[in-house]
């Protein structure tokens, strides 16, 4: 959802060398494991999330579960933009979601449903996700 650059004060303990989760921030992977505009799925406890590294260096985390097809495929969608909103289109039925809020911007004629999102912090080379979804 948001990016916090390393100088920004994070939750206590974040930014230290520890790879252990501190409070509820979980280290999921390194930035180098991600690819610009090509998503990756990750496990966060029981949840499946989809991580996206954007062109401008920001990282977003949304649910990997596509509420329209009921399959875990969001990480495999095409990343793009609608006006100034970063988006992902589900590979299944092409609903388009705002990567920052999870809101559905193009429902393809269906009822609007949104994706849960998770706060993300990039700490140096590490990608941390807060394990409570919003």
């Amino acid at each position, binding site marked *: 959802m948001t990016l916090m650059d390393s100088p920004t004060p994070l939750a206590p303990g974040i930014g230290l060398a520890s790879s252990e989760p501190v409070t509820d921030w979980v280290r*999921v*992977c390194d930035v180098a*494991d*991600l*690819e*610009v*505009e*090509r998503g*990756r*799925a*990750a*496990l966060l406890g029981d949840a*499946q999330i989809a*991580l996206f590294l*954007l*062109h401008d260096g920001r990282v977003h985390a949304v649910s990997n*579960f596509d509420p329209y*097809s*009921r*399959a*875990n*495929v969001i990480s*495999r*969608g*095409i*990343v*793009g*933009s*609608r*006006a*100034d909103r*970063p*988006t992902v*289109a589900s*590979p*299944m039925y*092409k609903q*388009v979601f705002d990567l920052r809020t999870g809101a559905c911007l193009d429902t393809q004629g269906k009822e609007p449903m949104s994706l849960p999102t998770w706060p993300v912090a990039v700490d140096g080379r590490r990608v941390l996700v807060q394990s409570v979804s919003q």
Partner: protein
Amino acid sequence: MRFTATSRKHNADEGATPDAYGNAMTTDGDDTRIVVAGAGMVAHRFLESLLSRGGPEWRVTLIGDEPRHPYDRVGLTSFFAGSSPDDLELERAHVDDERVRFLRGDTVARIDRAASRVTTRSGVSVAYDHLVLATGSYAARLAVDGYDHDGCFVYRTLDDVESLEAFVRRRSAELGRPLVGTVIGGGLLGLEAAGALQGLEVDCTVVQSSDRLMSAQLDRPAGDALRRLIEARGIRVETESVTTRLDADRSGQVIGLEFRDGTYAQTDVVVFTVGVRPRDELARGAELDVHPRGGVVIDAACRTSDPRISAIGEVANFDGMCVGLVAPGYAMAEVAATRLLGGVAAFPGYDLSTKLKLSGVDVASFGDAFAETSGALDVVYADPVAGVYKKLVLSDDAKTLLGGILVGDASAYGSLRPLVGGALGGDPVAYLVPSGGVAASTGELPDAALVCSCNSVTAGTIRTAVHEQGCTDVSAVKSCTKAGAACGSCVMMVKQIVGAELAKSGAALSTALCEHFELSRRELFDAVRVSGLSTFSAVIARFGTGRGCDICKPVLASILSTLTGTHVLDGENATLQDTNDHVMANLQKDGSYSVVPRIPGGEVTPEGLLVIGEVARDFGLYTKITGGQRIDMFGARLEQLPDIWRRLVDAGFESGHAYGKSLRTVKSCVGSTWCRFGVQDAVGLAVQLELRYRGLRSPHKLKLGVSGCARECAEARGKDVGVIATEAGWNMYIGGNGGFTPRHAVLLAEGLDDDELLTAIDRFLMYYVFTADRLQRTAPWFEALDGGIDGLRGVIFDDRLGICADLDAAMARHVDTYEDEWRATLDDPEKLRRFASFVNAPTTPDPSLAYTAERGQPRPATDAERLGSGVPIAGTTLEVRR
């Protein structure tokens, strides 16, 4: 019209039949209570018209006896092409409006005019201030012995088509062969039904009692021309054939028909399309005026003999006639709603224009098609070889268009129909010669001319939408005015008007790909080619805005693939690929993939079959033979794909493009190598073609087929390029496709030798790849070319545009640089990284996958099964016992 307080508040028989609906609606003294009997297309339009203009005081009770939301009956036949009942549903918002109560699946049984109430079959009684009858028609059956045997159907409702389809499937499974079917009645509906039966593999005959097909709309020569077109599609036609009896076997299943001339025909299924009968029984019971030939008599205000009751749609009889078309019904709905809202409106009379919606058969009839106006003149153009017959009916001074008939080429329908009653503007012959539809200009179309007859949208309304509502393309005009939103036959016309109006105001009809590129696909292709840019980021920085989307990214992926020949997963290319290209396999509904090994020409060795069998068994995959002569293996997880490819590559296979906008397969028959009839080696050629064009990215998917002789067992004419062997060489057909609007390929060139054929196909495919629009298949593409197929021949064979060298070079580069995309992925650790299931658990299977067994193979478990209904399900991989 307004209602007085006293009439609104009457509550005569409330004690007798307590009723939540009627009572609830009478509590607020300002409400106006409308009851609509029937929830079909016309009722729906009435609701929409009333509610969009009326305030909160309107209370509507909608009662429909079909257990569904109102749906698009006109589109009923698309059910057989895969439209689900949900797809056919009409806009739900009007029914869900809080001012509406919908009694679904209930029937109005009685009208009590004295009490101003209706009673339904389930016993609900509803009071009305105004009652609207929109009960439509019954589909008639023939009054002959045996009309209701098992296997006899009518063609009117979703229930009808669902039971027809189920019957055909069950019966042909029982008999172990395709069915023989009969459609009784050769009108518009009969031909549609015959097309639908044919789609179910039923060998079909249309039986017509009069001397020609569509006798209500066509004259004899037009009927004859249509007959030839229908027969060319493989549907038999019997005219002047009167059915006298239907025969059944001992179990009551229909097995044959007897005709008046004593002949007998075998049949397994019968569909009656012999006309409709208005459902006017409610009106009869309430002693409203009913026409002797049926239908509730209405005046131009759509009122029945009781001014508090209106009738609209097919049940209404205006001027001695009921009409089975939706456009007049919509017009009546608007009139009735406008009148209730206090406005002035009158039903102008029927417009009987129609266009047949049977794909591949163009027929239209409009205005005074039979030249019944006194002194009317006919202008006729007929080309029996091409199966074309066109007639215009003109006023005695040959200046005013009165009507016409178009068979075999109805492209001019959209531009001619709005001109009825007005000056033709120019030589009538110009509208009849083959390119008439395109040449006819819309500039002089008067504002009052009706363009969309289904939704009564005039040229003026469309112009206003452009100038005052800021619509800049057809879809905006469609949502704004509803033009083209029903049967769609006027869409090209709408497009021309929008284009002309935009041009007037200095703008142009938007051909922009999406919000990121102002260019069309074709322009973008040229831009990339000329600029030599080779990455998406560079192209969008130079020619577009933003970061792209799921429309422009795959288009650029395809263009870059053609122009640079780089791998789909190379660098930034990997971020552009659509759903299946994204991982080079076919995404299935549960998020798993299917893998389809390439089997060029459908030729496979026994060892090859064993390998595929072993891979499927070892990975627990469901297998099925595809329509493209390959074997599809389903249920592969993302992280398994490389392992599966490795096994295939090691055994000499590559995976195949069963996906993407690319060459799919080259289907072939066994040809002269084995077949008694074959005249050339169809398999050999198919293998050669598939290996030559594999991996070619294109604006839409591409399929090829090769048959070894004119018997055409490979169905090559259903392909974008179909090759059929003759003694004299190869015949090349182009523009065929299956799917939603099936097309037969047409002959491009005859008697080609191997080299000539390859050159012709190379250029045809590359010209298409260079210039077609996004998602435009080959048929609409070449039809839109300058000069159509002749223009295309000029480009390919006579190099009229001087681009053949470019086309040849592009194809040569494609052929030379082709690499096995799957093997290349296996060889590149960077690419392989993308096949991890989770970035933090690369080999952990998606825990949400669950399968159950059916007929000895795995399939995705349904939601109910996952929720634990006792069906054994397995995560990820299922052991299937054999």
